């Protein structure tokens, strides 16, 4: 049975430190655009930490929610792509093929989570930052759409090593950059087709819910938080 990669995010553990965002930027060669372009809504963060203030001062509670591509099973971004650049893989990943993308931006408009980003510019890294680019990830050029891949390069690397050594993948072998960077261990990644994996177990938790569940996108990211009786 092929893998079905998914993630669980424990919001009660998340401290909002932003290490996942930094790890994601470093791993995936995501450029920063500067304050002027960010003000125009062109900032690119494949993973962002949303902040929510609950209650009125002084009884304020601050909660965080890391939001990345939800890798929906019924992804609204996929059927709108005229070139199949945005497509579903056998492993349930919502993949983006940069060399196919022609930049129509239909997918970003269709996405209810606002996790797709358009390259308005050729990315630039001031020297010597260009030396820290990850060679396993394409550097996207101007005019293509990009998004969280669940660090597909890491998944492939682990899969290839396992196959070459003729062994099965274990739960926890694959760690996307955000999961690896999370010191609170709020993010858990793994195979949803394996009922024993930690992510499967957490996804079945009664604390779990999906983001914008009612729009019917069947996301593979589960958010866990304390459920209170109202």
């Amino acid at each position, binding site marked *: 049975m092929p893998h079905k990669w998914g993630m669980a995010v424990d919001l009660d553990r998340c401290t909002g430190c932003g290490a996942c965002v930094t790890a994601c930027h470093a791993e995936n060669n995501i450029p920063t655009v500067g304050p002027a372009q960010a003000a125009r809504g062109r900032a690119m963060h494949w993973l962002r930490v949303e902040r929510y203030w609950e209650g009125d001062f002084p009884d304020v509670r601050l909660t965080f929610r890391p939001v990345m591509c939800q890798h929906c099973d019924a992804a609204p971004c996929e059927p709108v792509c005229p070139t199949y650049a945005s*497509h579903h*893989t*056998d*492993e349930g*990943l919502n*993949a983006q*093929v*940069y*060399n*196919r993308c022609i930049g129509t931006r239909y997918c970003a408009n269709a996405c209810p989570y606002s996790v797709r980003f358009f390259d308005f510019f050729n990315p630039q890294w001031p020297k010597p930052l260009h030396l820290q680019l990850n060679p*396993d*990830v*394409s*550097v996207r050029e101007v005019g293509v759409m990009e998004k969280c*891949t669940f660090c*597909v*390069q890491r998944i*492939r690397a682990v899969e*290839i090593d396992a*196959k*070459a050594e003729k062994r099965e993948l274990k739960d926890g072998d694959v760690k996307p950059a955000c999961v690896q960077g999370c010191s609170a261990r709020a993010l858990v990644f793994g195979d949803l087709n394996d009922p024993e994996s930690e992510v499967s177990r957490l996804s079945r938790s009664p604390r779990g819910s999906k983001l914008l569940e009612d729009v019917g996108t069947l996301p593979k990211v589960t958010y866990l938080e304390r459920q209170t009786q109202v």
Partner: protein
Amino acid sequence: MSQIFHRSANTIARVSIFGAVFFIAGLLVLLAEVNRSPWMTESRVAREQPIQFSHERHVAGNGIDCRYCHTSVEDSSFAGVPPTKTCMNCHSQIFANSPFLEPVRDSFRTGRSIQWTRVHDLPDFVYFNHSIHVNKGVGCTTCHGQVDRMPLMWQESSLQMEWCLDCHRSPERYVRPRGAVFRVDYVEPPDQIELGRRLVAEYQIQRLTSCSTCHR
């Protein structure tokens, strides 16, 4: 008032419309073929190198295994270009004073690498891994051609995506037993399809044609 066009203009119009279809179709075929030709892909074009290193001499002549120089091919994505030290293993004794090998000795003395010209250069958005192909029974010569007959290295295949997919869709046409992967004198048996099907099952070779297999 006389007619502007002669009656034959009807025929000419029909023929030219009919002909235009074939002309445009022909043009497209021509374009596709030019795109596949060595003129675009630079396949089978021998590359000049800083040292006229002959794979023919070293592989066919001396019988050196691929892995003696390309050491990381079995466990890395990159097969590896040998350091000058590997050359000097032999050439400190053999042809130790040959003027042809002066750049090698110079590199060894100064510690500056020899700047080889890259022969197989994939686009930057394609990620190829040597180790998995070698471990699944894809021979060196399947992609790189008869290296033992290349005095100067050339790129044997087009390296275009249709060429990759040709094998990714039906690997049974190309795979060989693992023991024969590094043999340059391996010849496909007449029952390759039958053998291939057996190996595909035995080695659990998948038909990976998802884009994100190679593009990421």
